[in-house]
């Protein structure tokens, strides 16, 4: 692609400087966490929080993973986030497909409700939500949290998917109908492969959101054995109030899956954010 405009050398330097400075600001706390997570004892953290460890020790990670029950929290988070991602991508893409391609009486209202959901935070509906989850007998279960988190992500996901679906030419679906494809086949074989960037975007946003979600699990879960990693860290803090080196190890363990997710989905993610405006 041709460059829209060319920067002069000074402008280049300025831009690079700002980008590097910003990267440093972001990387600094992570760097501090990494350095301190390898320190063998708490004393070293307090004496020189910015110093390198006297000896590099992986013991903190093992202790956090095994001793502080992090493996359990991690597994719960994987289950919650994984299920939420599957539910949201599947439900949002099918919902968007129907709303965009098979409009019916009331579909505009349904779309409007989803858009309201984008604006109104789910926390405002917490009381009725709590009653609903309780009535369903899903309080203090992973299923309950998964369903609530999926619902909270649906509006944004439907918004992204509908916007993307509108850029897919309707003639493709007409062609598939002529070829004898039923609505589900059209969705599965024709539309889904074409909206992959949108799916990647939704999956990534949903994963990061549900992986980092603290509030909803806090409300809907009570037993520590059901805690996801966010609640686990809080638990961890009360258990190991001053054990900063273990705490940092725990935080970094929590950070890894989101980084992996971003690396895996970044190309599709950027496509998802930029595509649609320009027809190829």
């Amino acid at each position, binding site marked *: 692609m041709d460059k829209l405009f060319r920067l002069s050398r000074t402008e280049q330097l300025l831009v690079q400087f700002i980008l590097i400075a910003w990267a440093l600001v972001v990387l600094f706390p992570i760097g501090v966490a990494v350095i301190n997570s390898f320190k063998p004892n708490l004393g070293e953290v307090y004496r020189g929080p910015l110093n390198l460890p006297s000896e590099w020790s992986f013991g903190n990670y093992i202790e956090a993973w095994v001793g502080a029950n992090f493996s359990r929290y991690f597994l719960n988070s994987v289950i919650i986030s994984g299920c939420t991602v599957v539910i949201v991508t599947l439900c949002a893409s099918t919902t968007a497909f129907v709303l965009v391609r098979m409009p019916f009486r009331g579909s505009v209202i349904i779309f409007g409700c989803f858009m309201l959901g984008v604006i109104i935070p789910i926390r405002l509906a917490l009381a009725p939500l709590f009653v609903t989850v309780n009535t369903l007998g899903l309080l203090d279960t992973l299923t309950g949290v998964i369903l609530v988190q999926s619902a909270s992500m649906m509006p944004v996901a439907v918004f992204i998917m509908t916007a993307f679906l509108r850029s897919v*030419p309707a*003639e*493709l679906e*007409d*062609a*598939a*109908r*002529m*070829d*004898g*494809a039923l609505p589900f*086949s059209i969705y599965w*074989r*024709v539309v889904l*492969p*074409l909206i992959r960037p949108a799916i990647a975007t939704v999956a990534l946003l949903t994963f990061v959101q549900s992986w980092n979600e603290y509030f909803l699990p806090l409300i809907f879960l009570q037993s520590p054995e059901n805690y996801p990693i966010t609640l686990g860290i809080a638990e961890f803090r009360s258990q190991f109030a001053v054990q900063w080196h273990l705490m940092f190890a725990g935080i970094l363990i929590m950070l890894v899956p989101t980084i992996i997710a971003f690396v895996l989905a970044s190309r599709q993610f950027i496509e998802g954010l930029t595509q649609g405006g320009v027809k190829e």
Partner: protein
Amino acid sequence: MSTISIKGLNKAYGKVQVLHDINLKIGDNAFVVFVGPSGCGKSTLLRTIAGLEERNSGSIHLDGRDISEDAPVDRDVAMVFQSYALYPQMTVRENIGFALRMAKVDKPEIDRKVVEAAKLLKLDQLLDRKPKDLSGGQRQRVAIGRAILRSPKVFLFDEPLSNLDAELRVDMRLQIAALRRTLSATFVYVTHDQVEAMTLADTIVVLRDGHIEQVGAPMDLYHRPANRFVAGFIGSPRMNFLPATAQGKSAVLADGASLLLAHEVADGAELALGLRPEHLRPSDTGEIAVTVAEIENLGPVSYAHCALADGALLTAQLPPDHQLKLGVQVKLAAERDHLHLFDANGARIGGGAAHG
């Protein structure tokens, strides 16, 4: 056998009526072209035959079987779309074979038929490419291949050549004409390009605002347009129209010049004289005085755009060796036998200009 019969077909989008009481019979193995300006309902009519649009009333029969309520796939028709509508994520092979895959045909059978169709369309070297790696013409051939594979009774083409450049369009037009001779099926073709319509069709259906204006063989429409709209639409450059008043067996133009008519019209009637550029030529004995405003030399022919006294332009065809200069005043003679007459409502008067 593949005859289509459309009876009393009406179609509306909300309150906007787009097809008005369409009645049409399409014969076995015919090549029928729907033409008309944008928004005349030609594509909607085609899509209604395909089953992609629901009709409000009326019926469509294929070989006597009422297909109006059938799903597109059950109608025994295949369609080629304007944008080709190839599935971008699939290879040419998968694109062509998709319909058979949907119909759960055995894989070896699909492969055999795909290769057969690809050979016919000279696509056999491209079977493993994706649509994005193909040129416009190749994509169009894949789209046609996809339609062929279903061996339908009727092929529907929705402006299939409008996305191609001029040279390729001529090439593909010839290929479609050749294909038509190879396949035993009825072709229904939509275009707004009257050259495509004239060259491909056995029968042209001219549509305007959801109404059928005229149905006929291309040269019939050319020589005997039923009304002023058809006369203006068929033929390139388009027919010239001159307002005139009837006086006995003559038509008197705005500047007082008088043209002798082939038959009598009621005195004082407002007329429009239709004159094709090829039936107007500069002549000292001509009746129509004009000033040459523009000359287009195309090689085999030239066209002079000439201004009448009131500023209206007439187009006349000139021989390639004409000596006409810009700005000169000339007289144009009209061939009386090729004069078309239309009344104030645009309807044809008399059966004149029937000469081929």
